């Protein structure tokens, strides 16, 4: 299992297109990926789950990946969140 804490820098938070893109990236990997925010945890491959967190800009989430490709998945997701912030 690998985990990572990351700040959402996109000005709209983890909403709308950034959320959809994040989920699409997550869906490419076999690992189970969880997003933890405040005290809740959701499936990173579920757009409904990710949206329901309502993560706003400048807040932190923890990503937890577990499975054969956990490290590549985590790297791809963190880079997705970082690149989204520059849009």
């Amino acid at each position, binding site marked *: 299992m690998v985990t990572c804490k990351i700040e959402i820098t996109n000005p709209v938070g983890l909403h709308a297109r950034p959320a959809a893109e994040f989920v*699409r990236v997550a869906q490419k990997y076999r690992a189970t990926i969880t997003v933890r925010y405040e005290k809740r945890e959701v499936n990173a*491959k579920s757009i*409904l*789950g990710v*949206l329901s967190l*309502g993560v706003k800009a400048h807040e932190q989430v923890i990503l937890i990946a577990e499975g054969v490709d956990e490290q590549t998945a985590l790297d791809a997701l963190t880079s997705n969140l970082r690149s989204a912030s520059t849009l």
Partner: protein
Amino acid sequence: MLTGEGLSGGHAVGPVFVQLEGAFDNRRYRPEQWEQARQDALQLIEDKSNIGGVAAEVLSAHRMMLEDPDLIGFIREASEQGSLLEIRQLVQERFVAPLEDLDDDYMRSRAEDIREVLDEWCQFVSSGSNIPIRLQNPVIVVGERISTEWLLSQDLTLIQGIILVHGTATMHLAIIARNMGIPILRVTKEVYAQVCQAVWISLDADAGMIRVSSTPIHETQHKGGCSPRVHKRIPVVYKGEVVEVRANVGSVAECERAIHTGADGIGLFRTELAFATAERNVANVADHTDVYSRALDVINGLPLTIRALDIGADKSVAGVPMDIEPNPQLGRRGIRYLQRHPDLLRTQLEGLQSAGAGRPLEIMFPMVADPSEWQFAIAMTREIFEGYQGPLSLGVMLEVPAAGLLLPELRSSGVDFISIGTNDLTQYLVARDREADWNLRSEILPVLRFVHYVMTLAPVHAAVCGELGGNTALTPLLLAMGVREFSVSIPAVGRVKERVSQSQYIDTDKVLSLLWECHDDNELLSRLHVIP
């Protein structure tokens, strides 16, 4: 007078069409039936996937929800024991309510979207199929909720306005409606009940007013004394694809008029005027930048196709040297002229590049006859636009028949679109001066058949920007051949849009051979006009 809150601006008058929410039965369905229904709902989205624009983005969001692993898993488990309405309730509690509870307009809109997707799914489970009533006449749609799928299954030109109880300005339905110029008013349940009783409605979503009537309301009565309104830009759809009806213009002032008339953009901006200036012998880069940046400001994000300088033959510009030739119509016109005077093209392209400032640009080159002329044009364009931030689309104005026959070669050397200039194309096809008296039967038919043939050679975005495009008798034929953009004179924009929206699919070969049997121009015209 009743009131409501506008979610999409504009005004409308028309008969009331009440769209009742789908009633579901409350039976139990097996998990496989839920899965089959989900596949059907996805197929419905797939069928509409070529719609383009904002609507396509909405459908892609809906697809993502229908493919959500949490939602699918939840329903699979619930369907082991629950009935349809029980499951619908559980899904709402589990997925919709948390979003509704967030203090955020955006999230509440997504909650509406999930509810919509869920209802679509339930509809398929309960009916096995979900074929909505198809509107035949212009109406104002009234419903507690109106789903995006329902809206997109209709001919949007028939929907004059929408009145609903549940919705937000950022819900997908409202985004599409604003894009399509359809006004939406949100009202209370009490107002909704009264509106349902009415026969005709006039609504003003900007002012939030509704007037109900038990008899038809006439447009003039409604407008009473108002200043003339700017026409709404209402996109038209043919076979599920948006067809752009743009305008041909020659100045920034005309751009403005075209947009106010409801054109979807500018399909031909003639730049000969931009070369003539009072201050200098011929326009410099700053002069060009000024004209094109004002044009881009005026059209405000709508598409704009700029034609590079097209002189020679009958067109000349003060200050620009002309070559004396024995046969100017077949001489150094358009791109051929520019090849001999590359500095003129360079100045123009540099002006365009700086005016564009990263905004989308479409540039087309006149009189291109073969790929080597095209190579010259794009080599210079690519050099000047190197590092340009925005989308750049390059095309040819199809006037020389050879360019049509070489379409596959042109496509593979980077031609993004063609715009068929039927005036010159006709004169070159039938070898008769474009100013001479013309005969419909012997001129239109070869041109139509030529366009039809060219369109089979290679897939390409094709526009018609010549006079033929403004002839509404030909609209259904051109659509059937694959033309997806018309660029016409400003006054013709409205009637071409109307004709596109009424056009049905026809068999081009059959219609063309039928036309050939006509004995004279009158018969030909009357036959063309009965094409659906």
